[in-house]
């Protein structure tokens, strides 16, 4: 039954390019980031590495960034946060919601008030839509699809970045600082 649901979910999920992505799909390098909104290391990667990466590489069309959700079972509110972020992506508000979730991670990780973060980020009207959308089968299937992709890449921890270039993939787990990541990206882009 679970397999059937996964298969249906995978088919129902719209292409990633319409949602949790940023940059030019035809960029030479694709960077998939598997993360968990409740994981402190994911927040560090988001704040210290991905923000400069977006400014210097993604928005200049050199790297295509794909966000993948990989909520870990040890984090009580991670799946709910992922569902709200996926729902936000469907109304074009992924980034404000994901930024707000990471910015206030310490607070909602303690009190579990994830939806309050969304209200502050997008306003009450959109927050109600997101709350309903987050419970939809499509959103839940999208998270499951991301997790399946992570498992297929033998991912066991977050954050994990998977860089792809010329048919080769390079998975790297943990927080990689921007200066080191930049060196590798420059090496790939120079090829």
């Amino acid at each position, binding site marked *: 039954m679970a397999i059937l649901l996964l298969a249906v979910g995978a088919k129902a999920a719209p292409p990633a390019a319409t949602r949790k992505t940023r940059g030019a799909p035809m960029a030479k390098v694709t960077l998939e980031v598997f993360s968990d909104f409740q*994981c402190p290391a994911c927040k560090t990667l988001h704040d210290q590495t991905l923000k400069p990466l977006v400014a210097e590489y993604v928005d200049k069309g050199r790297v295509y960034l794909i966000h993948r959700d990989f909520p870990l079972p040890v984090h009580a509110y991670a799946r709910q946060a992922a569902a709200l972020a996926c729902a936000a992506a469907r109304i074009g508000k992924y980034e404000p919601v994901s930024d707000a979730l990471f910015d206030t991670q310490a607070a909602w990780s303690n009190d579990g008030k994830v939806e309050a973060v969304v209200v502050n980020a997008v306003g009450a009207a959109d927050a109600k839509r997101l709350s309903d959308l987050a419970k939809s089968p499509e959103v839940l299937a999208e998270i499951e699809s991301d997790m399946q992709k992570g498992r297929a890449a033998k991912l066991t*921890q977050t954050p994990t970045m998977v860089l792809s270039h010329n048919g080769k993939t390079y998975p790297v787990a943990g927080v990689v600082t921007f200066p080191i990541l930049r060196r590798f990206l420059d090496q790939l882009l120079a090829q």
Partner: protein
Amino acid sequence: MTKRSGMVLLLRLALAVVLLYAGYTKLRQPWLVFAMSIDAYGLLPEMGVLAVARTLPWIELGLGTLLLAGLWLRVASALTAAILAIFFGIMLLSYGKGMGIDCGCFGVGEALTAKTLARDGLLFAAAVLLTRMAWRRPSTPSL
């Protein structure tokens, strides 16, 4: 061959194979991929990360070759034990902090887990034993 020299031979060859394989797996991928694995430990500044990423695979290959050939056994075994002690200490510290990172031991994609810690601990113990045996007896190339 005595039981003792047989043990030295076994430890020497086992450590040599592991070091040669570790160096090879790091060198067959872009060196900056290994740099990112080192960086994820969060212990070194940028220049330190780059220096280790550039040199460590060659050090592993060099020590592996010396152990395989049985040359400078006392020095090679002591350096191997020292390097493995550093690896083991860093891995233990990172695992204790609950860091979700790659071990970086044999290229990318191997998570730092209790299993990798146990393996590194065993290798360290083997290197210490080899060093002890090498320093207790005359160092000869035949071993």
